[in-house]
Structures are given as structure tokens and as C-alpha cells.
């Protein structure tokens, strides 16, 4: 009976993936250092590479959060960009408050756009955002609360599959329209920009770039470890069970609404954190971040990498975005076709994504 009592040893595949991940993280960590080398050095890495990679790391965290919801719990969210954007807006509000009297209008408290729109005092929901800890709390709480409400209503009513996807897509679309409005108090279609500093550190400098890059990398590694640990517990297996046969899980006594809600809220919070680190790196946040296309792109990253594997989400986020960065400069008109074609190709030929391909090659070699 000993066969039954011991867990199987980690497969060679898993060990290989772990080694690959450690190497990838070390390589990423080296980028800002290589950026310091003299420009004529063969190992010099340009500012562009550092800042673009910093963005991709945030995208990778978003992909990871989506994989938790979709790949494990089976919640195909087409609105995860909304959680990312809300985290970004919460961070943006903090950055706007930090501008203080340095704005173009020189108002001691009100951000420029409020002065321009004739606000005389700060709207109530802007209070507190001058505090970094408070803003960080909101970065997680606001997306988490939205996920809690939307998830509760949808899961309790047993809305699943394509209806759930449409619902989440409508959620991000509605938020986009709302944030476009000037009277919402979030800067309308211009959003927030012209950030000055964060934690006393002037933004836009090489050192700020490096700090934000490392902060994102720490978030990525932390999220990866959290998701990996979580999905290896019995809870992870309950999510898989719900994904594959939700009704069966209910008859086993699992309150699937609660389990899905837990995963969805956690996932939204991770996405919010990713958005919060994204905004100071790109220097702007506007309602375009809520556009339905962004959420769909995130789903494609996960599908391309291979869902339900966590590593696949990372692989997909980096590879699709690398392709996008290259293609949008080489042949900008082709990008949307390429993205669509990629999705169709992966769905038809690589249902388990790039990770599945890797797996198949290994099996082919008889490993």
C-alpha cells in the first residue's frame, strides 16, 4: 500500500521548469545592471529594453492572475484588464496627490485637471490617497471589491461559460465609458499623467526605472510563489475539480460559489498590483486601459503560453508582447491580424499552448 501513501516525486519536467524559471529571473534581474555599462560595451542594455521589459513583467503578473482564475478555477474572465486598470488608477491617484503644488496651475492640493474643470475642493474619494500605504491598500481593495460583487452575483446565479465571459467583458466596457466622463473625477479621457515622484524618488530617472523594475520583478516572483503554493494545496485541486465538473464538486459538499469567489478576488487583487506598478513605469493611466481589447489580449497570452500551468502564463505574456513590440514597429498594420491569427492557430494546433509543445517534445524524446 506504500504506493498509495506517498506523493509522487516531482517530475523531471517540473524540475526543468523550476531551473528555467530561476535562470529567467536572474537574467531579468541583470538587465538594469547591464544598463549601467558604458554604451559602447557589448553587454550594454538600452533604456528602452529596461523600460519595456519592466512593462512586460507587469503584464506577466496580470497573465498569472488570469491563469489562476481561468486556468484553475475555469472562470474565463474577459474583463481582467479592468482590475489591472483599477489598480493603476489607484496608484495614479497617489501619484497625482504627490504632485502637490508642482502642477501647471500650481494649486496646493487639487490636480491640474480638477482646477481646469472648476473643482473647488477634492472629491471625498480622493482623500487618503496622499498616503502610500493607503493607496497600496486601495490598489488591492478596489479591484478585490469589484471582483467580490461581480463574482458573487454571477457565481451565485450560476452564470458560467460564455455568459460569464460576456458579463466580465461588459464590466470592463462599462468602466471604460464611466472613466471617460469628466464628471467622474478621474480626469476623463486624459486620465492621469505628468507624475513627479514616488516615495520621494523622482520618476523618469534611470534609478527610478531600476527601482520600479526590481519592484515589479519582486511582485512577479512573489505572485508566482504564491500561486504555485496555492495551486499545490488541496484548494488548488478543488479549483481544478470545479473547473472540470462544477456540479459534481457541489454534490461532494463544496460550496463552489465561495471557492470561485476566493480565487476570483485574489486574482483581481494580483491584477491590481500589476497595474499599480505598471502606471509609474509608463507614466500615464487613462480609460483606454479598460478597453475590452486589453482583457482579450491578456487571455491570448495565457492561451498561447498554456493555461492552468502558471509558467505558461508567464511564457505567453513575454513571448506575445515581444512579438507585439517587434511587429508594431516593423509592420504596425499587421499586429491585430497577427494576434487574431495567433489565437486561432493556438486554439486549433496547440490547445495546451507553448508549454504543451515543450511537453510533447520531451515525450517524443522518450523522457
Amino acid at each position, binding site marked *: *500500500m506504500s*504506493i*498509495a*501513501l506517498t*506523493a*509522487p516525486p516531482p517530475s523531471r519536467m517540473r524540475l526543468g521548469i523550476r531551473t528555467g524559471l530561476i535562470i529567467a529571473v536572474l537574467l531579468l534581474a541583470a538587465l538594469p545592471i547591464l544598463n549601467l555599462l558604458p554604451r559602447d560595451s557589448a553587454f550594454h542594455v538600452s533604456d528602452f529594453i529596461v523600460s519595456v521589459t519592466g512593462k512586460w513583467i507587469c503584464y506577466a503578473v496580470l497573465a498569472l492572475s488570469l491563469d489562476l482564475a481561468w486556468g484553475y478555477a475555469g472562470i474565463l474572465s474577459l474583463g481582467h484588464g479592468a482590475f489591472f486598470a483599477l489598480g493603476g488608477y489607484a496608484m495614479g491617484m497617489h501619484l497625482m496627490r504627490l504632485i502637490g503644488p508642482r502642477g501647471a496651475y500650481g494649486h496646493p492640493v487639487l490636480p491640474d485637471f480638477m482646477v481646469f474643470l472648476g473643482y473647488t475642493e477634492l472629491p471625498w474619494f480622493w482623500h487618503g490617497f496622499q498616503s502610500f500605504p493607503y493607496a497600496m491598500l486601495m490598489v488591492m481593495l478596489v479591484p478585490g471589491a469589484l471582483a467580490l460583487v461581480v463574482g458573487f452575483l454571477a457565481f451565485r446565479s450560476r452564470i458560467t461559460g460564455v455568459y460569464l465571459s460576456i458579463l466580465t467583458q461588459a464590466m470592463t466596457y462599462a468602466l471604460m465609458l464611466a472613466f471617460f466622463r469628466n464628471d467622474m473625477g478621474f480626469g476623463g479621457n486624459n486620465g492621469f499623467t505628468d507624475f513627479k515622484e514616488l516615495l520621494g524618488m523622482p520618476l523618469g530617472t534611470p534609478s527610478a526605472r531600476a527601482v520600479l523594475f526590481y519592484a515589479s520583478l519582486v511582485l512577479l516572483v512573489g505572485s508566482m510563489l504564491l500561486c504555485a503554493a*496555492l495551486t499545490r*494545496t*488541496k*484548494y488548488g*485541486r*478543488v479549483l*481544478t*475539480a470545479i473547473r*472540470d*465538473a462544477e*456540479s*459534481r*464538486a*457541489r*454534490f*461532494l*459538499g*463544496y*460550496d*463552489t460559489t*465561495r*471557492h470561485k469567489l*476566493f*480565487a476570483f478576488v485574489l486574482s483581481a487583487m494580483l491584477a491590481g498590483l500589476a497595474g499599480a506598478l505598471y502606471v509609474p513605469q509608463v507614466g500615464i493611466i487613462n480609460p483606454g486601459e479598460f478597453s475590452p481589447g486589453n482583457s482579450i489580449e491578456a487571455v491570448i497570452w495565457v492561451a498561447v503560453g498554456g493555461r492552468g500551468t502558471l509558467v505558461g502564463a508567464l511564457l505567453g505574456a513575454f513571448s506575445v508582447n515581444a512579438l507585439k513590440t517587434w511587429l508594431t514597429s516593423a509592420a504596425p498594420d499587421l499586429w491585430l491580424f497577427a494576434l487574431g491569427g495567433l489565437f486561432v492557430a493556438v486554439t486549433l494546433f496547440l490547445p495546451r499552448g507553448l508549454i504543451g509543445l515543450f511537453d510533447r517534445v520531451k515525450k517524443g524524446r522518450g523522457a
Partner: protein
Amino acid sequence: MKGRSLYLDGVTVVFDGFRALNNLSLVVEPGELRAIIGPNGAGKTTMMDVITGKTRPTSGTVRFGDMDLTRLDEPTIANLGIGRKFQKPTVFDDLTVFENIELALKAPRGPIACIKWHLTGEAADRIGQVMTEVGLVERAHDPAGILSHGQRQWLEIGMLLAQDPELLLVDEPVAGMTDAETEHTAAMLVGIAGKRSVVVVEHDLEFVRALGRRVTVLHEGSVLSEGSIDHVQNDPRVIEVYLGR
């Protein structure tokens, strides 16, 4: 804890004007093993759906002890101690046999409890015991998705055992099983009853005879006849609608 009885009274389920259950009344005593037979479409599966909270009856009473089951959802009813095996075996394909049984094992069901859960020696022993009982020890670390049809049936029965329910509802457990497997299943269900109540729905009369217990014949959503297998087999109404065909 003293055993609870299952009590259905005047249960009617209407789907788009069609009466799947029609004024059905049935009592299953604690520890009883009850076989339910009836032609296809008689409402046997619908009856299980009503007991387990999947379908709300249009009218009638469904009680387990003093709990009104018509007001509870599936997980709550499952946690009251009512386990169910489906007609079409449903197991979690991506999880191993071991993990399937681990999920079924009686334990707190909330997200936090599942995160904190770690496999104690006692739990592992229990899982090993269940796998032995259903003959799947060698397949412990195989994903359930690659099991044969019969093995899936067994795994589902194993999950039911691991759940340790007070009342088991078993829908057509021997469909697709060999004669030897069928016999083993009958012996196992007889062994389970006594400690728990068991309701078995089955087409196979030989199987029902092997159980050797009280039989209820359903027809068009209500009870047509009830008694020993010999009694119902000789009941002219049963012969007319079911056995005689």
C-alpha cells in the same frame, strides 16, 4: 448520532408541463437498503435530483430527519450526510485517483480549510483503505481521465465511501460492469447498508435480486408497487408496465 430517515411525501416535479414526478411518496428508514426500479423515464434520476437539491420540487415535502431538503442547496445537503453517485460516472479527470478520493474525504470544505489541509497519516490510511475496497490501489497516481468505464464507476463509489455519508444515493451503479463486478458491487452495497441508508436505482433485475431487499417500482413519476422482489415481480400492474414488455 441516531440515524435519520428520508421522507418524501406528495412530491411533484413538473418540467414544462410534463410531470417527471407525480405525487411521489417514499420513506427510507435509517440503515435500510432500498432498491428502486422502473422503466426509463420513470423519474428515478429526477427523484435523486430532488433529494440532493439539484431540482426543486413543484410541490411536496422532502425531509431528512428534521431537515427540509427543499430549502437547501447541493453542498449543504451533501454536508448533511447525503452522498450521491451519478448514473453517468463523473470523476475529476485531471486529478489522480488518490486526489479524487482525497477531495471526497470527509473534511472541512471551505477555501481556507482546503488551503491549510495537509495529508495526515490517518487520512492517507483512509484513502488507501478506500482504494483497496474499490480495487484501484495500483492506479493511485494515474489521472482519473485514463481509467476504463468500469474503473470510473468504482472510483465514484470510492469517493462516495470516502465522503462517509449517512445516506447514499446510487444511480445505476452496475451499468457497463461485468458479471463479476456486478456481484462485487451488490455485496459491497449490502455491506455498507446497516451502518448507513442506501438507495440504489437499477435496471438490472438480477442485481436487485442479489441485493435481496425491499424494492420500490416507479412508473410515470409515482410508486407503482413496493415490497420484496418476488412480490413486485408477481404484481400484475408491474408485469404490465415493466416486466412484461
